[in-house]
C-alpha cells in the first residue's frame, strides 16, 4: 500500500463514521434509509480500493453486484415506507 492509498482509506473511514452516526441516531426513518444507501456506496468504493490493494480483478465483480443489488434493496425499502404513510392503516388492527 502506498501512502496515497492509506490516506484515501482514512478518508473512507471518516465518511463511514459520520454515516454510521446518522444511521444509529438519525431521528427519522428516511435519515436511516438514506444513510444506509450512502454506506453501501462507501462500501462499493472500498471494494474498489480492495481490488487495487490485492491487485486482483475479482473484487470489481463484487463491487458491481453489490452496487446493483443494494440499489434494488434501498428502492424496495423506500417503496414500503412510501405506501405506509397515507394514514394509520395497520394490518394488525383489521
Amino acid at each position, binding site marked *: 500500500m502506498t501512502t496515497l492509498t492509506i490516506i484515501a*482509506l482514512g478518508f473512507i473511514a471518516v465518511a463511514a463514521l459520520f454515516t454510521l452516526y446518522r444511521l444509529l441516531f438519525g431521528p427519522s426513518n428516511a435519515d436511516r434509509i438514506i444513510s444506509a444507501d450512502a454506506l*453501501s456506496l462507501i462500501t462499493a468504493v472500498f471494494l474498489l480500493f480492495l481490488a487495487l490493494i490485492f491487485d486482483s480483478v475479482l473484487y470489481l465483480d463484487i463491487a458491481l453486484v453489490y452496487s446493483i443489488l443494494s440499489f434494488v434493496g434501498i428502492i424496495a425499502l423506500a417503496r414500503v415506507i412510501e405506501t405506509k404513510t397515507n394514514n394509520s392503516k395497520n394490518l394488525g388492527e383489521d
Partner: protein
Amino acid sequence: MIWIVAFVVFIMLAAAIAVLLLDNMVAAVVATSVVSLALTIIFALLRAPDVAMTEAAIGAGLSSLILAIGLKRLGYWKISDAKGEKND
C-alpha cells in the same frame, strides 16, 4: 491491514447492537442490511470473493426486502412521522 478489519468489525458490531436496541422496525431492518454489508467487506478481506458475492446478492437485495414485506404484512411495522415521533 489489521486496522481495516478492526474498523469494519466495529461498524458491524455497532449495527448489530442497534438492531437489538432500536424499537423502530424500519431502523432495525436498515441496520440488518448494514450488518450484511460489513459481512461482505469481511469476506472480501478474507480473500473469498465468491462468498462475498453471494453474501452481497442475498444480504443486500433480498434479505431487507423480505424482512420489510414480512414485517409489514404481520403488522409490526410501526408508524412514525417525519420527526421520528411514533403516533400510535
